[in-house]
């Protein structure tokens, strides 16, 4: 059974111009999928649809067979628990006025998840490679990579089955990026991962499946290795050709 299904979803900020045009996607448990495209290709819009932050103008999104309905509070509480997100910019994704404990525990409080929150937050922080003694510190006391780990801890603390990552490593320096990619890779062993990026190299390292978006349309999708080895669509070929290479 599919975890999340998107059927011919379209979305536009105005009636004349669609940002996403008839996108279909099937996400099964255990998948690791990369959504790839240039800026403006509609990948972040698709992600916002998957998060239930916006509703499709047309088409359907179903989660475990049930229609995604932002007006259904009980459904959305379970959906939020199961689907979490990590954002691109670790400097704007953490509230500068909250301490690490309050930040990471927010899903536990808001979704009224029972249990020892302090212990759950500590476990989440340790699992992303942070010390347990950072609970009472503010975000500005951490580096970009550490902040992104805190953001990942917040995303996994409620035990989601699907983790969405929106350009989660593109704001980081190279060495930090590698470590966060390794962390996401290890998380993808235990949960489904949808990784939005314009970086084909990172997607190749992280994702088994790849979906290529161009101007709001899915132009190519399939196993990452075969698509990168043998791209069929001209846009995919152009994307691959545009990857910078070290001079010989």
């Amino acid at each position: 059974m599919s975890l999340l299904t998107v059927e011919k979803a379209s979305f536009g900020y105005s009636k004349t111009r669609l940002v996403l045009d008839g996108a279909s996607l099937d996400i099964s448990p255990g998948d690791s999928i990369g959504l790839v495209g240039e800026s403006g290709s509609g990948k972040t819009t698709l992600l916002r649809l998957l998060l239930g932050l916006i509703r499709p103008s047309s088409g359907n999104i179903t989660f475990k067979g049930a229609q995604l309905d932002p007006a259904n509070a009980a459904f959305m509480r379970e959906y939020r628990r199961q689907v979490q997100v990590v954002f691109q910019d670790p400097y704007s994704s953490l509230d500068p006025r909250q301490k690490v404990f309050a930040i990471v525990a927010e899903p536990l409080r808001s979704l009224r998840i029972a249990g020892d929150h302090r212990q759950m937050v500590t476990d989440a922080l340790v699992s992303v490679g942070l010390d347990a003694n950072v609970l009472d510190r503010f975000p500005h006391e951490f580096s970009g990579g550490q902040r992104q780990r805190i953001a990942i801890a917040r995303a996994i603390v409620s035990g989601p089955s699907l983790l969405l990552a929106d350009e989660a490593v593109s704001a980081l320096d190279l060495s930090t990026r590698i470590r966060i990619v390794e962390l996401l890779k290890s998380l993808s062993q235990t949960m489904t991962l949808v990784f939005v990026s314009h970086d084909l190299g990172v997607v190749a390292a992280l994702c088994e499946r790849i979906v290529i978006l161009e101007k709001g349309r899915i132009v190519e999708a399939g196993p990452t290795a075969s698509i990168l080895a043998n791209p069929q669509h001209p846009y995919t070929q152009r994307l691959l050709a545009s990857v910078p290479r070290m001079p010989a």
Partner: protein
Amino acid sequence: MTAIDQITTPARRRSWQSVTLWAGIILVSLHVIVGLLTLVWTPYDPSAMAGGRLEAPSWLHWVGTDRLGRDFLTQIMIGSRIALTVGIGAVAIGAAIGVTLGLLAAFASKFLDDALAAALDILIAFPTLLIAMLVVAASETATLGSAILALGIALSAIVARLTRILAKRVLLMDYITAARTSGTSWLGIVFSHVLPNIWPTLSVSFALQFGLAAIAEASLSYLGLGAPPPNASWGRLLQEAQGTVYTAPIGAIAPGIALVSLVIGINLLADGLRDSIDPTRRAR
């Protein structure tokens, strides 16, 4: 270490912050203590003729007497209480109305936001004192309460516009989206994320509004629209000293100094408090 490094060294900045904070605390505390003291004790009965007319400062009357022979220090002390009452009352009313309206506008649909923003801009286009005068004139008699209400309403438009701008900026941040995807309600987002993040700037604005209210109350009293006699408002003292400013200048200088010291004290206190409650401004 360069000169610039020395200026921006956290320890020096911290010590300057604490000087600012303590100067504000001392000045405001002085006014609060004096204001509270007048509830139980004053050197003389404020309406009694305690000495001769326009006496110069002496051991008996430290700031002299007015043209009716009333003790000036007593009246300035009572003026402190009135200024604090007006400042706190007007800012409380302005903050309650302004923050609520500003948050509503920030969260509202584009149409409602535009309508509220336009209404606020029109209100702000009128000088604070003019709006206050209109509200006081609309009530039958000028009282301390009507002055507070008038100033509160006049200040609320400024607070609302600032709140709207600050809240809209916060709502664009990824941590708000993260809060939404974490299941936090809009009310929860307001109290856990928006208000704490806009509070430092708002608190400085409230201090400025407090100063504005104290000055506006003095202006209203000067025009005869503020706290009526026997309330010894600083504005009324200034108005009464107008005719004797060349023969007994202390009558104009003393309430002026009292007013300026309160406004400066409040501003320093707000500045210092903002630095101490903002975790990102604390020394690392």
